[in-house]
């Protein structure tokens, strides 16, 4: 009888560390095509509409960049915490706070055309995101409270705060009662960097974060200490690393990144505060980006481009295939499932067939 068994590997497979994300992407595509066929679509047309169509012109590439940029930025920040097993899953809320803080600055200096408005918006955005992340950090370090649930609950709270602001105090007085703020003045908007696209200068912040985290993860003693705290908390205690510090840094890094992404969204494509535009789901999608990118900056860069493509594909599918745009979220979820599933191959290998002969071979290794 043919049986499939998982056999522990003597050493974790280094190649599977890199191969399993690719395998997961492959499985997601295969599965996706089957779903498209099931929905009565021609798989080739569907594939084209989903993955090629959105990026076959410059404008599309620009869209890819402005979607990938916040995803990568947030994922980089989250990776700092995830490496230490600090589970900040409330980046969405921190992003909203970043948007609010940056938007607040933009509205406050509505009349100003100073060059300092934009930097101030980003500082405010980062601080806003950090403040929101500081709540779970404080509660975890002071009261031992689970940061997963607290950070997640604060997403809903952040959404309500934004909703209140744009329904109430910050509502555009000339907006016919629509729940949105005024359009920001030009001094509060990021310059475009590629002619003919919406790609804006916020991308540079992501690039900077990419460089900083690469150096930090590779050479930073603190990053090493946080990694130890994540892999073996007792070893961190034994070595004398401060665990509270780890929690704070892990959460604040994610908060700052999400806040910056929020500021960048506010000052970038939207230029105003608006419920639909500000609640993007990037904070949740970035969790997938961080995992698929293996919590590594370069991996995150690629994963963010892929995830951005899935977003665009979903929009394109809506237009060209009359499919609900939520199809992209299904793909995103599937991608993470397949990744988690294929990760088993890092520590185990599949063994087919009757157990005896194969086991003997394993024993001889």
């Amino acid at each position, binding site marked *: 009888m043919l049986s499939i068994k998982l*056999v*522990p*590997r*003597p*050493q*974790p497979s280094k190649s599977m560390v890199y191969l399993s994300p690719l395998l997961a992407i492959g499985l997601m595509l295969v599965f996706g095509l089957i779903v498209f066929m099931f929905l009565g679509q021609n798989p080739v047309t569907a594939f084209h509409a989903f993955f090629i169509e959105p990026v076959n012109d410059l404008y599309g590439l620009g869209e890819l960049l402005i979607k990938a940029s916040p995803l990568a930025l947030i994922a980089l920040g989250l990776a700092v915490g995830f490496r230490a097993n600090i589970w900040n899953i409330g980046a969405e809320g921190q992003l909203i706070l970043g948007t609010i803080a940056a938007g607040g600055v933009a509205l406050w200096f509505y009349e100003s055309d100073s060059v300092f408005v934009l930097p101030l918006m980003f500082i405010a955005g980062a601080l806003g995101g950090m403040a929101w992340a500081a709540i779970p950090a404080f509660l975890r370090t002071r009261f031992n409270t689970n940061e997963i649930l607290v950070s997640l609950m604060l997403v809903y709270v952040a959404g309500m705060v934004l909703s209140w602001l744009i329904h109430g105090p910050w509502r555009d007085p000339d907006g016919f009662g629509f729940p949105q703020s005024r359009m920001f003045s030009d001094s509060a908007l990021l310059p475009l960097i590629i002619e003919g696209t919406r790609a804006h200068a916020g991308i540079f912040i992501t690039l900077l974060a990419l460089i900083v985290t690469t150096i930090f993860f590779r*050479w*930073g*003693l*603190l990053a*090493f200490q946080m*990694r*130890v705290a994540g*892999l*073996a908390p*007792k*070893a961190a*205690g*034994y*070595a*004398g*690393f*401060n665990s509270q510090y780890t929690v704070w840094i892990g959460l604040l890094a994610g908060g700052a990144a999400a806040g910056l992404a929020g500021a960048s969204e506010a000052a970038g494509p939207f230029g105003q505060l608006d419920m639909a535009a500000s609640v993007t789901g990037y904070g949740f999608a970035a969790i997938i980006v961080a995992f698929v990118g293996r919590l590594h900056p370069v991996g995150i860069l690629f994963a963010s481009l892929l995830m951005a493509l899935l977003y665009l594909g979903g929009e394109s599918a809506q237009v060209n295939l009359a499919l609900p745009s939520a199809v992209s979220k299904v793909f995103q979820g599937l991608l993470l499932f397949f990744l988690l599933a294929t990760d088993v191959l890092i520590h185990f290998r599949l063994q087919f067939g009757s*157990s*005896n002969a194969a*086991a*003997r071979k*394993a*024993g*001889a*290794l």
Partner: protein
Amino acid sequence: MTQAHSTQAHPPQAHPRLELRNISKYYPTIIANKAVSLSVMPGEIHAVLGENGAGKSTLMKAVYGVIKPEEGEIFWDGVAVNISSPAQARKLGIGMVFQHFSLFDTLTVVQNISLAMDSKQDMGQLAQRISEVSARYGLPLNPHRLVHDLSVGERQRVEIVRCLLQQPRLLIMDEPTSVLTPQAVNKLFATLRRLADEGCSILYISHKLDEIRALCHKATVLRMGQVTGVTDPRQETSKSLAEMMIGKELPVCDHPPAQHIGSERLVVTQLSRAADDQFGTSLKAIDLRVRGGEILGIAGVSGNGQQELLSALSGEKPSEQPQDIQLNGTAAGRLNPAQRRQLGLRFIPEERLGRGAVPEMSLAHNALLTGHSQGMRRWGGFIDYRKMRAFSKACIDKFNVKCSGPEAEAKSLSGGNVQKYIVGREIMLKPEILIVAQPTWGVDVGAASFIRQTLVDLRDEGVALLVVSEELDELFEICDRIAVMSEGRLSAAKPIRATNLEEIGLLMGGEMHTDSTPLAQEVA
């Protein structure tokens, strides 16, 4: 027990109770058992002897149906059987007392025992039967207590009673004495002999030569998964058994008495600490002093406060009182491990993977764990990879760590080699005070002897050493003075040559204040 009695009626030369023929079990990295054969007669106490990693536990798990061997046959009373699960093993009449107990802390004794029964039990009746059986065999137990409130010895009793209730015809004991005082070992042996007299066969797993010679009728010796001898241990010397077990004579540590006793380096004064929870032990007014150039040993049955003392000394759980721990004359009670390291304290914990080293990280990165402040970083917060690897390489070479190099993951090494690396790392970081917990626990004989010798050499260089161990033989081999931990108290330290195993055993059993007993005066 009627069943057990009836087996005595069989002529002993009939079928063996259990016979294993050519059992093999392979794991990805090792061959745990290779063509192992063994037979146990009714009423026989049969030793399975071998050092750590020889494949003893794997073999017993195969007999108990926990794992399935790839090859070989098992015969029960002369009939070939396929033991596919513990439930089936129990049905045949096989009971097993596990080395790391298979008990559930938050459940009561009677609940624990009912879980090993294969059908639903009336808890009241079961409790009554537990009381009866435990009284009959002199293993007193209260069926309604929670397991986490029990001492280690009592937990073992639960496991034994759990087996006895099923009227076993074969009892497997996996390293049962590692948690007992010498006196408790004697009591256990009496129980086992009585069971054997009633016709129950016993498989006794151990690496302790003296115990096997005292208890067992027959011994099967394993080395690296294979049988290297079958013998009557009563006819053998420890030396000849050791040769079968490790292929050479037991190495003995060269340990002349301490020569140059220096100044007091580690001073603990009236250290008291409430336990974190009911699972822990409170420390009660602990006093100890270790001077440079000597080794102080702390004996005791595990769970008597050793963990708590060690984490208080290492700084992983700092105390409120700065004065209760002094390192080289500096009050250090409130300092964290990193700060204490600056004062010359180095600590080698009992848990190697997960505490002393990060299993998923390379050996080089593991050097960084405690060595980062010693030249392996630059510009304050950045890792100097060149220095880190050089240190790791030097440690591997100097301490003869078998591995593929500094990039090898810590968890890919054998227990002995991980321990050599950690010991080496801490020694290369120049300790003035070294605290070591269970230095050779789970380590093969060769590496154990190397580690003990290293500790003695370190003493002769003037380092103050504190060694906490459950192995009395080890403490008597390397220590200059010895103290005993029991229920969170530490006895006064005695010079090793002024005490003996029996006295230490009594102290381990909780008989404090023996300073005035005749025994102590006699040897003083």
